[in-house]
């Protein structure tokens, strides 16, 4: 397999440059794909309309047109806004997204960082976005923004817990916090001695997968958990006062995070970059691994967007009840069951 051998010797700075560029691609590409494929097209087909059709074939260049429009807009500030906080908020949200993509492995050697506490890092940096959203809500000096920001903070803190606890089952089963090794544990795993498809954790951790999906839906503030941006009551919550470039940054942040959370779900529960039938150490995976990961990511995010377009939203107290009274006990139960079964088998 020398054809696919990519292990070229590169200097550290060369690797860093390549990784930075690929990181940008890894954030922007899923965001663009999700927006076009699901937000523009799938949503339209579900709602018996065509969606964008004019810009490019089947409206495929619509996204570029939208970005161009946002870039041209004036950078407005509300008069009473806290300017520094208002300006910085979108970057804080986006920073959380960029940090989140770091831990994702896309092949045996295709990773940004490979550390033993990858899961811990991912879950820690994912909550930085709460600070950004609170900053946006407070800095806008608008009542709608303030309500939206506070709702968002309450919601994100509440759903952080089920998110973390749902992953704990995977961590216990794989026996490691290293994301790469979680993928390998699934690739090399066996289902009662049969190793044909490895052991994707969705089979044993189905409850964890469901809780994880619900929690990321809430973390992304998408319907049915979009109370913080509920456009029919508090306009768009913390986004109300943003226009142009800064709104675009929030927008990219939201959809890129949707993509990366889906990729994380795919990595934790669906086997990540691995597809059955090949040797997981094969160099081939450095090439097709990213594509496999994107494919699985699209599968998971399809579910996210499907729920998004179908359900009405929960009220603030109802979604808090769902988090604390249902999801947290269930995920604790999942951890206990996983731990007991791990010891027994």
């Amino acid at each position, binding site marked *: 397999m020398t054809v696919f051998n990519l292990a070229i010797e590169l200097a550290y700075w060369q690797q860093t440059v390549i990784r930075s560029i690929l990181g940008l691609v890894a954030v922007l590409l899923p965001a663009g794909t999700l927006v076009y494929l699901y937000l523009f097209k799938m949503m339209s087909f579900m709602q018996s309309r065509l969606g964008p059709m004019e810009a490019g074939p089947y409206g495929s260049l619509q996204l570029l047109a939208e970005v161009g429009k946002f870039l041209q807009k004036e950078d407005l500030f509300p008069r009473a806004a806290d300017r520094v906080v208002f300006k910085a908020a979108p970057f804080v949200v986006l920073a959380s997204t960029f940090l989140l993509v770091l831990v994702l492995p896309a092949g045996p050697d295709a990773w940004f960082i490979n550390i033993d506490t990858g899961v811990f890092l991912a879950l820690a940096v994912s909550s930085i976005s709460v600070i950004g959203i609170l900053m946006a809500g407070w800095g806008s000096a608008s009542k*709608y923004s303030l309500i939206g920001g506070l709702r968002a903070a309450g919601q994100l803190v509440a759903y952080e817990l089920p998110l973390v606890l749902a992953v704990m089952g995977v961590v216990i089963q794989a026996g490691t916090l290293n994301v790469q090794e979680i993928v390998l544990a699934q690739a090399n795993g066996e289902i009662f001695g049969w190793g044909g498809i490895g052991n994707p954790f969705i089979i044993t951790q189905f409850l964890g997968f469901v809780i994880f999906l619900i929690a990321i839906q809430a973390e992304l503030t998408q*319907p049915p958990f979009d109370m913080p941006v509920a456009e029919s*009551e508090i306009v768009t919550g913390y986004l109300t006062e943003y226009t142009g470039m800064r709104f675009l940054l929030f927008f990219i942040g939201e959809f890129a995070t949707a993509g990366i959370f889906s990729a994380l779900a795919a990595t934790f529960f669906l086997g990540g970059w691995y597809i059955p039938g090949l040797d997981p150490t094969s160099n081939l995976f450095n090439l097709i691994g990213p594509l496999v990961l994107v494919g699985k990511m699209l599968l998971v995010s399809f579910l996210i967007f499907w729920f998004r377009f179908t359900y*009405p939203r929960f009220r603030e107290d109802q979604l808090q009840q769902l988090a604390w009274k249902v999801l947290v006990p269930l995920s604790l139960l999942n951890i206990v069951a996983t731990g007991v079964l791990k010891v027994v088998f």
Partner: protein
Amino acid sequence: MNLEASTQQLSYIANQASDARVNIELETEGMTLNLGPQHPATHGTLRIIVRLDGEQVVSAEPVMGYMHRGYEKLTEVRTYPQVTTLVNRIDWLGSFANEVPFILAAERLMEVEAPPRAQWIRTALFELSRIANVVLFLGDMAVQLGATTPVFYAFRDREFVLNQIESVTGGRFHPNFDRIGGIKDDLPKGWIQETKDVLSRIHSFCDEMEDLVVGNEIFQTRTRGIGIIPADTGLAYGLSGANIRSSGVDWDLRRDGGVGLIHDQLDWKVWTHPDGDSFARYWVRLQEVRESCKMVSQILDGIPSGPIMAKVPRIIKVPPGEAYVETENPLGIMGYYIISKGDLVPYRVKIRSASFNNVSITPWVLKGVYVPDVISILASLYFILGDIDR
């Protein structure tokens, strides 16, 4: 009083005072939120001043009049046939229904009665405009609760109803079709069969909404037990239409009113719901669309032949007198009080529109609810801004 006791007493008083001070310091100031006049949920220019304690509403006060167009005054300088053009625009989603009570009141003053065929066609269009109106509510309520999809289905299927109205009257939104003594034109060729197809489409739309919205658990948790209006309170505030029927009051002017429409010759049912909450209001309206479909299909089968205009003079002068006619319009009871002095124009017209009264209950019903429920309750009360402000 000895010294010891007095120090104890003083310290007690001091404690009380400091507690009181802390309480005053801790008491958070309420926030006043202006919902509207420009707000995505009011689909128009209704302003609601809400005083909030956290997310809870302390008091709510609707401010109307941002869309006041002065129709009552304008009618005084319009001849009777010209008035229908104006009143079309009161409830713009079911506009034909606005013309009917005015025309009926004028007919009562002139002592004219429309021929049977005209009455049947009038009733058919009256019910079609109800369908066109309430179908949009069925989708809009869901969109207020955050589900974006149903409203597109509503617009999709409402389009066919509007097409049928257009092919009879020539106007999609503002037909201006009703005349004193009858209607303007007869039905076009093939209209009856086409309308039957449209009705089956609306039937399947209702089934779709029953599955997609009414059966949805989140929709039920958001609407059941929210915004309960007891029957006597609702009647005291002058609620009408589906809003009062969903509080269990069995009162429908189409059955009980006995004015110049032919609902009493049709086989249909008045739906009520005992709960009086937002869910009941949605459910009752859903059933009413089905009943309207039933009525229209019966009308299509049994429509009599004959003339469509009674004998009325070319230049309409209404004899002096007063008349008040109210009908069960899509939003509730709509009535016109006409005073005529025998001129070409009415001397005074008072319009009683349903949404004005339906909105007036908001200070009572919104007290103590959460901000998200403000929107769902307002959506379920279902007002049209033109119908509030006239």
